[in-house]
């Protein structure tokens, strides 16, 4: 039976064009030991291009085979990049669930052109036997995603959480503080990137 959960919509602050990191934690203690699949979907809504970057994946479960498609590259052991070079872009991996898993993702923030839909990133927990979501969520689209990010052109995009098993928030602060000289160097490096972002937004 499908279980509908109360949706939580979180609007996160982040930089335009190069959106800040978001930590996503999923409590799977009730499903520990269950064979499942994790699906990171990124669907093109039309121009312009956007990219999703997934990193810092942690779990006490066991990862298995990987089935990337479209503009998916990398691995969860390191970094996964999803680009909307294709219509449907997915990083799909087998997993034997532990008590939880988490990851950090970031996105570019290029809103849709007129006539386009927002590019949309969504996370699913799939039953490998049926190919359907393991449980129902409050996803109004009826797809039973756990989390969906619509890159809608707003500064932070629209992140919607459809399961109480999912927590989102900023990632833990980095333990190493850059030296002043390194901060300067970083700032110099960001200048052309920020200008590029403004140009994109003005377009």
């Amino acid at each position, binding site marked *: 039976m499908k279980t509908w959960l109360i949706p939580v919509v979180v609007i996160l602050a982040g930089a335009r064009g190069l959106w800040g990191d978001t930590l996503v934690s999923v409590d799977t203690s009730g499903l520990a030991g269950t064979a499942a699949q994790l699906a990171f979907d990124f669907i093109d809504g039309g121009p*312009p291009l956007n990219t999703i970057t997934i990193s810092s994946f942690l779990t006490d479960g066991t990862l298995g085979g990987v089935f990337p498609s479209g503009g998916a590259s990398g691995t969860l052991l390191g970094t996964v990049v999803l680009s909307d070079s294709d219509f449907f872009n997915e990083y799909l991996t087998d997993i034997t669930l532990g008590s939880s898993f988490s990851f950090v993702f970031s996105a570019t923030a290029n809103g849709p052109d007129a006539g386009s839909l927002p590019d949309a990133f969504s996370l699913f927990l799939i039953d490998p036997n049926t190919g359907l979501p393991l449980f129902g969520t409050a996803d109004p*689209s009826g797809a039973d995603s756990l989390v969906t990010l619509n*890159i809608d052109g707003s500064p932070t995009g629209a992140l919607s959480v459809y399961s109480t098993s999912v927590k989102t928030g900023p990632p833990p602060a980095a333990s190493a503080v850059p030296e002043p000289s390194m901060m300067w160097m970083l700032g110099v490096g960001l200048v052309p990137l920020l200008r590029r972002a403004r140009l994109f937004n003005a377009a």
Partner: protein
Amino acid sequence: MKNLRRAVSIAIGIALMGMSAATNAWSQAFTDLTNRFAVVKSGLVLNRATNTYNSVVTLTNVSGATIKGSLVLLVSNVTAGSVTLANKSGQSGAGMPYLTLPIPAGGLAPGAAISNIVLAFSNPTRVAFTFTLAVASMEGVLLPGAGSAPAISAISDLPPVGVDESLIQNGVFLSRISVTFAPGATVDQINQALALVGGGIVSSAPGLEFVTIAVPVQPNAAAVETLASKLRTAPGVLWAFPGHASAANQLPLPPSSFQDKHLLPTRFPAAWNTIDLARRNCATQAKLPVLVIDEFANPASLPAGYIGFDGQLPGFHLFPASSGFGTATHGYNVTTTLAALFDTNTPTGANPVTECLDVTGVEIGGIPDSDVPLRILQSLPSGRFIANFSQGFLPECPTSGSITAIPALDRAQSTVGWIRATSRRWGDFLVASSAGNCLNDRVAEIYPGYQDSRYNSAINVATLSDPTFGFMRDTTLWNATDGVSPNLTASSSDQAIFLLNYLSLLQPLLPEKNVLVTGSTRQGTIFDDLFVSSFSGSNIDVNAVGEGVLTFSGSADGTSVAAPQVAGLASYLWLLSDDLRSNRPVTDTREAIIENVHSTAAGPTLDAYATVLSLDAPGPLTAANAPVRRALLDVNNDQKFDHVDIAVFVSRFFDANGNPIEPPTRDYSRYDLNGDGFTGGSKTEAFDLDRAGSTQYGRSLYSGITERIEVGDVDFNENQVTDMEVLCYYAYSALYQGLSDERTDLLLGKCTQVSVTVTPGVVTLTPGGQQVFTAQVAGAQDQRVVWTASCGGIDSLTGLYTAPGAGTTCQVIATSVAYPAAFGKATVTITVPGETFLSFLWHGFLIGQVSTNPPEARNCPGQTTFASTIVLDPTGSTSSQIRVKELSFLGQPTLLAPATDLSNFFAQTSQTDSDQRDTLSIAGNQDSMGVFHITNGVNRVVIGGGECFIVFSDGHIGRTRYTTYANFTFTGVGGVLTDLQ
């Protein structure tokens, strides 16, 4: 591919163009409302269960007005050919898929949003795509077929669809316009006209150039009129008027404590005395279809007070079946006024035989009056039926506020719609139509045309004989008298165009003759009490009582509740007469009602009883050609009028002593033959006894007539007859199928107006003594009598009487020679010297068993034994000369083993037997003290040989017990009766 997309407006423009193109199927009509909404689409998410890519859409009303009506979300310009909308609700004629949108009750307020609208796209090749969304109102269709084809040929059957109450403002439909095609209009012309106003056809009927179109919901009536004006300028459109609601012709009034009194003065109870015939007929016939065209709430929305409705009208149903207009009770009230059971509950319908009716409530709530003919047309049953229409043109007599008055041209046009839709079936139905309630209303002061019932509705207008509908140009009717309100008179050019198009249609059809326009009278008891209701429209065909009519929600006033009494009577007539229902033109039914109205201060007023009586063939009457009268007289419902029926009536008209009962009040009983409401008595009422010169289903002729009763002629004035005279007339007519002797006995002295008085009336003679009696015959020229005597001797010519030789009592009878039913009596007591009389009253029980087969075997033999003592004068001589001299029975039988509800329906002749037992000897002995002891248990009085009539109205005959009082008179010779123990 990431291409730029077209603007929404362009897409819709293309879509509308596509809809205007020729197509073989009905095309939906859309009106673009996208600019009233903010549209937000989510990105796509893969739904693995449906293998679709879903986007969630939110629409927010950014206009300043509430948006009502049927909305759709159109999806167009999908950039990949392999991508389709998997969850579409439908598709436009141009191939655009759409979703219907859920609109909150009352509409979508400014700032409100419709959320979570899911668009599910099938994208099997997973190609990139974009699409365009547009919001549009969608109601109705465009004409199909080739653009150059005649528009009339493209019309097909589209049943009217009701709108929510919130879309009707002051009687004007905010989303409906009535459109009439111009002669020769093409499909393209009409579709382009529709595009002008964003309209679509929502109701139409094949062959009719009248359609109703839906347009985007307008904020007010003026905006609807603006659209209608725009349509009128379009090629191919002859007329266009805002859709108007019908006005229910009922006035609200507080509840009354009266119990269905509205049916009394128009003599419905007397008409129902033939109800057995109606029930018998319907046992072999299909139920009679009756249409009540009105506003009906869905039964689930009715107030609690209507819980008994289904019980009163078993099988009642709505058309369309799932319809229902808000909480409207008007139709239900009209329906129960037309037909509801005659039982202990109110209301009671004009036709109480509801089990023989198939009553359909035709829903016209929520549809404009231009749709009413179409709805009716689609609801028409096969064969013949009765209809009621208690609606009229707006306004509903407003006492304040704005007036939505209907222009004369609009009335004419609506009437053409009615005629076009129904004229082919006029021969199949009779419709009662209300006269309207605005006679003394503000709107009628401004527009005198509102005073006249003939213009109250399309049906009423159709009864005009003028095919030019000249009324539409009559400024005295339609020009506003207040100098402020707009004139309603049609222009000369409008009339010219109207006649150009319709004169040839109207000329052969008008006037419609299957209509009875019904006005209202006040309440009353008899016809003389009835005055016209202050509100009732003029120029009616017939009136009925339209005030204080009981419904499930209290008392109602208005011509709305007057008309269904006429429809109810018409349906009752058809139950009584299959000839009238199946063979005769429906206009005969109308004539039967019209020709038998009673002229009152209110004008021609319904006379249900006279109308029912007009169903019998003109004289001479027989049991076969006068079924109504036979049913009336056949009180025990054994399908013949015989002496049993006479006995029942006589028992109601006369007391136990044979004296006429003068009823103090009206009881509207089954025994009220002349229809005056009284049972028996001297009150008179007109009654067409002989039907000579009368017209079946038409006028009844009331005249002076003579009938042979026994051997004499009796005069009757049909304008003034009593119940007893009705009974006497038919007892000696061909309708009578009983025994002649029984009839004579039962009616002896009761049917003649001639009386005979014998002088002296009482006399005492000694044995052998003589007395000359004289007789006076009152009421007759011929004074001749024939003398007879029960004992002794009498000269039959001279009246010379000679007493017998023993003590007794005799009767001398003088019978009129000219009128043998008239006779007079004198009592002669013959006394023997020394004989003394003593009377005492004895009472006991006589047990009788009435034979049940055949029911005519009415003997009820019984017997009793008695004992007592008689104390004689001890000084006298006594002997067995003591005898019962007179025995009579008094009182009424009481029921021993009653069936249900029979207590008021039995009848008995009170038998007086004064002479038959006078030879009965009493067994007993006289003791030494002179006391005569009547022997216990030996003496027996046997009741038998006579008849006791115990006949129940339902034909039931059962075991009964009589509490009977026997009055004994003893005589003794040679002693004095001094006591009785």
